[in-house]
């Protein structure tokens, strides 16, 4: 039995990993899960940051007060690292602490989101596989290219003063249901992810779930990598899904770049 964390659906993969990759998954579940639910904190931190920024831009009493409130939210958003892991249905962003060796623990960062999209699971699955789709959908945080079938090259610019890169390989594919990939080879940030397609009720189309799991090696470097990736908003999975949805449904990803404005030389988003 392969030792992986939380497979999509409650069953084992129907298809064994492709490409002769028989290595043990890096996502072993051999430690007790003790980390905390992070979503409210993340939302709070994001909101706090926005408030803080806005408040500081405003420059009168109200602005200062707003900035203070923003700071309060930020505090709430970042101070709860030590709270115990709370298991709750629908938790979508969390960290798992994993035992590595006898004393050390390592955190897995799991980002999961779902969205409902017009279209059949089969059509959406095909669209996901389209060579251009991933690069457009992930464009908000990574450049994704497809050097070959079932292969992806991911590059997150500007992390640790250089690009954070990895190759990923599709390890499981069930048409109209699921696509799962894993990073291969050496990278500062081993990771895996899957996207799942399930029919939605009535005329809603398809429920699409996207999950990223980042599993850094021990040590400062790994921790930094996740921290920096986490600073690319934790809404990463949600943003990717939203972009995919807009692309599929409306034929474009909404944007305001470039947008006329009286700042930054006449255009700003």
């Amino acid at each position, binding site marked *: 039995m392969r030792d992986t964390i939380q497979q999509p659906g409650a069953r084992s993969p129907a298809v064994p990993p492709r490409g002769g990759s028989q290595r043990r998954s890096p996502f072993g579940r051999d430690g007790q899960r003790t980390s905390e639910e992070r979503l409210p904190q993340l*939302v*709070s931190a*994001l*909101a706090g940051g*926005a*408030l803080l920024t*806005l*408040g500081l*831009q*405003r*420059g*009168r009493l*109200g602005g200062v*007060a*707003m900035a203070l*409130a*923003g700071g309060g939210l930020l505090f709430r958003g970042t101070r709860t690292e030590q709270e115990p892991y709370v298991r709750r249905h629908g938790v979508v962003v969390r960290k798992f602490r994993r035992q590595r060796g006898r004393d050390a623990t390592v955190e897995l960062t799991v980002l999961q989101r779902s969205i*409902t999209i*017009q279209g059949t699971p089969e059509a959406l699955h095909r669209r996901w596989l389209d060579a251009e789709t991933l690069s457009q959908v992930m464009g908000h945080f990574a450049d994704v290219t497809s050097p070959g079938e079932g292969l992806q090259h991911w590059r997150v610019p500007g992390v640790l003063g250089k690009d954070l890169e990895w190759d990923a390989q599709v390890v499981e594919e069930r048409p109209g249901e699921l696509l799962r990939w894993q990073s291969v080879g050496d990278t500062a940030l081993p990771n895996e992810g899957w996207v799942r397609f399930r029919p939605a009720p009535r*005329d*809603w*189309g398809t429920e699409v779930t996207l999950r990223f799991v980042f599993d850094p090696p021990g040590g400062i470097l790994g921790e930094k990598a996740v921290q920096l990736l986490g600073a690319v*908003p934790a*809404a990463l999975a*949600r*943003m990717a899904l*939203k972009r995919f*949805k*807009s692309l599929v*449904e*409306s*034929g*474009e*990803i*909404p*944007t*305001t*770049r*470039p*947008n*006329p*404005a*009286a*700042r*930054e*030389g*006449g*255009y*700003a*988003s």
Partner: protein
Amino acid sequence: MRALCWNGINDLGVETVGDPRIVNPHDVILQVRMSTTCGSDLHFIDGDIPTMRKGDVIGHEFMGTVVEKGPAVKKVQVGDRVVVPSFICCGSCWYCQHDLWSLCDNTNPQGELQEPLFGAQTAGIYGYTHAFGGYAGAHAQFVRVPHADNDCFRVPEGVTDEQALFLSDAVPTGYMGAEFCDIQPGQTVAVWGCGGVGLMAQKAAFLLGAERVIGIDRLPERLKLAREKVGAETLSYEEVDSVQDVLKELTGGRGPDACIDAVGMEAHGTGVGYAYERAKQALHLQTDRGQALRQAILACRKGGILSVLGVYGFMDAFPMGALMNKGLTVRAAQQHGQKYLPRLLEHVVKGELDPSFLATHRFSLEDAPKGYELFKKKQDGCVRAVFLPN
């Protein structure tokens, strides 16, 4: 190009900014013929809602001529004179497909700013805060219109620019509010607010078969418009002890069958700062501004309909008990303009609807800050200031 920009709280200025460009395949660029002020603009002008940035181009109620189109635009042609609803809608998501246009899933690039407050994301709006997308607004010589085939409505010959202009927001918002009331023959509809939206809600209530319409406001010139241009009965809330009592007396002790709130709150919920803003502001502001909605709930007859067009964020001291025990039905939305535009244009062509009387004042774009000042302070009988940017 020249454009009216938000440079800070109560600081509007006409600035030179970049010309809008075709960004996405379904975009068109419009040369703006007319644009107008909206009461909801006052909230971010006054600094009561966040997510504005210095230099943002404002304005969301407008019409103009198509001067450039993207490669995927099929129906709309260069040269078309069109009116555009203030909400940007893709036309293909579940909500658009079900005529719930302002709930569009695919047009707000910064929708995550709304999630903490609304628990969801709405469609984008032109020139109306970054929480609503951050799109450049229409008080400008040119404006980019995404999803043009869904969002541009050709203005027929014989319909004037001013008639078409208000079909962008005030008319469809009011019409939707009246439609929410599910009006039956013989029914009475009371409308709080005699601004652009309130007057149009009153007009629409008649169009949809109301026997009596009662307009409520405090400004004599607006009440006069309600009487003379719409044919409504009017009630000045400053001149009576109890609006609720008067409405009951006017309806045989029952209360109006439906009540429309076209007032809203001073500060409304469009971003992460709202919860905090509400806490910050002394309650008197909130109770003042929440008064219309509370009155409407208390005045409405048992089993009646409450239609909410006013814009809200959070509200405390909300009379939930009255709502529940009287069995009221609440309906509310930002405008689903794309649903109503075809039939509204038809009403105008047939001469059944002429909203141009809302345009009490005209300004060049360069004088737009003066226009907003007049509008904000409701001076000189101003209902709507209209700008001619070109």
